[in-house]
């Protein structure tokens, strides 16, 4: 078997790199999304918890972008696949597993745009950036489907186990996060109404005072 390693690396090296980097990217995207949802749900209100979570979230997201970049380069360089620039850059152009690879390309674009937009949030505006950042869950879902549909290791129990074990808490956190965001928007709405009422009452009091 040892004698076959140089031959394997020379013929299938890029394929091995693309598979390894894809799995690393998937693990990191999963971790980043999990941390982001946990952070937003605020389950723990310890001092410093949010700071630690934010740092880990940012680091895993950046590492995931690097892994996705390596995956794209390795797929491009694969001598057997020969996808060409269009195959890796334009969705649904690569003939092999056209649909699943197409959503993979879209997921990669979204990951780069949403991930790097963090550093442009002042220019974009915090409100717009925040609402755009919520679409990161789509990157995770598209990445998961891309891995299941086009991945070479879809049949491996380790991969399937990881995907299921992480998808369930992410789904629960996402639903919880939606609930939290709806409750907080209701609270903001109520607070604004209360403020308006108080202002109206104050104006009425002033009017009564003036009349008197």
């Amino acid at each position, binding site marked *: *078997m040892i004698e*076959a*390693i140089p031959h394997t690396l020379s013929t*299938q090296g890029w394929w*091995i790199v693309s598979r*390894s*980097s894809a*799995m*690393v990217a998937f*693990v990191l995207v999963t971790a980043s999304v999990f941390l982001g949802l946990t952070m937003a749900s605020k389950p723990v209100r310890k001092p410093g918890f949010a700071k630690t979570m934010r740092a880990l979230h940012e680091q895993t997201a950046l590492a995931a972008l690097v892994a996705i970049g390596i995956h794209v380069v390795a797929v491009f360089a694969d001598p057997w696949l020969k996808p060409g620039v269009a195959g890796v850059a334009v969705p649904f152009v690569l003939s092999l597993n056209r649909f699943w690879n197409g959503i993979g390309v879209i997921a990669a674009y979204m990951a780069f745009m949403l991930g790097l937009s963090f550093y442009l949030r002042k220019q974009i505006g915090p409100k717009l950036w925040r609402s755009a950042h919520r679409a990161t869950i789509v990157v995770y879902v598209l990445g998961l489907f891309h891995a299941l549909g086009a991945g070479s290791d879809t049949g491996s129990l380790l991969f399937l186990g990881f995907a299921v074990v992480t998808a369930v808490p992410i789904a629960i956190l996402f639903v919880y996060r939606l609930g939290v965001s709806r409750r907080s928007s209701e609270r903001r709405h109520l607070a604004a109404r209360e403020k308006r009422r108080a202002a109206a009452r104050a104006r009425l009091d002033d009017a009564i005072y003036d009349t008197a």
Partner: protein
Amino acid sequence: MTTPRPRAVVIGSLSLFAVLFVVLTFELSANASTKAKAQANAKARPAPAETKTEAATEPEEPVSEPVESEEPVSEPEEAVLEYVPGVGYVERVPEPEYVEPEPEYVEPEVEEVPPVVTSSS
């Protein structure tokens, strides 16, 4: 709580990548070598039918040449299981059918008749 350093994430990711790379390389190499061995075996060993033929034509031990017998040896009849009440199944070789021998043609002896001499006048 202390802020985690990015080094931990980088080292973790690189370690995972290295482990996956090594595992996949070994897996593919093992598959390739198994396939190569199977192909080599298939080339070295002929098909089972050929093996049988060769074994039949080239026996390992030399066999003494068969002595030609004047009378052809009749092939042994296959044994047939026959149920005998009280005994059970009994292997029985059916008796060969009796074939009446053809009578040999014997050429009849011709008696030599001495020529009859007649006197002529």
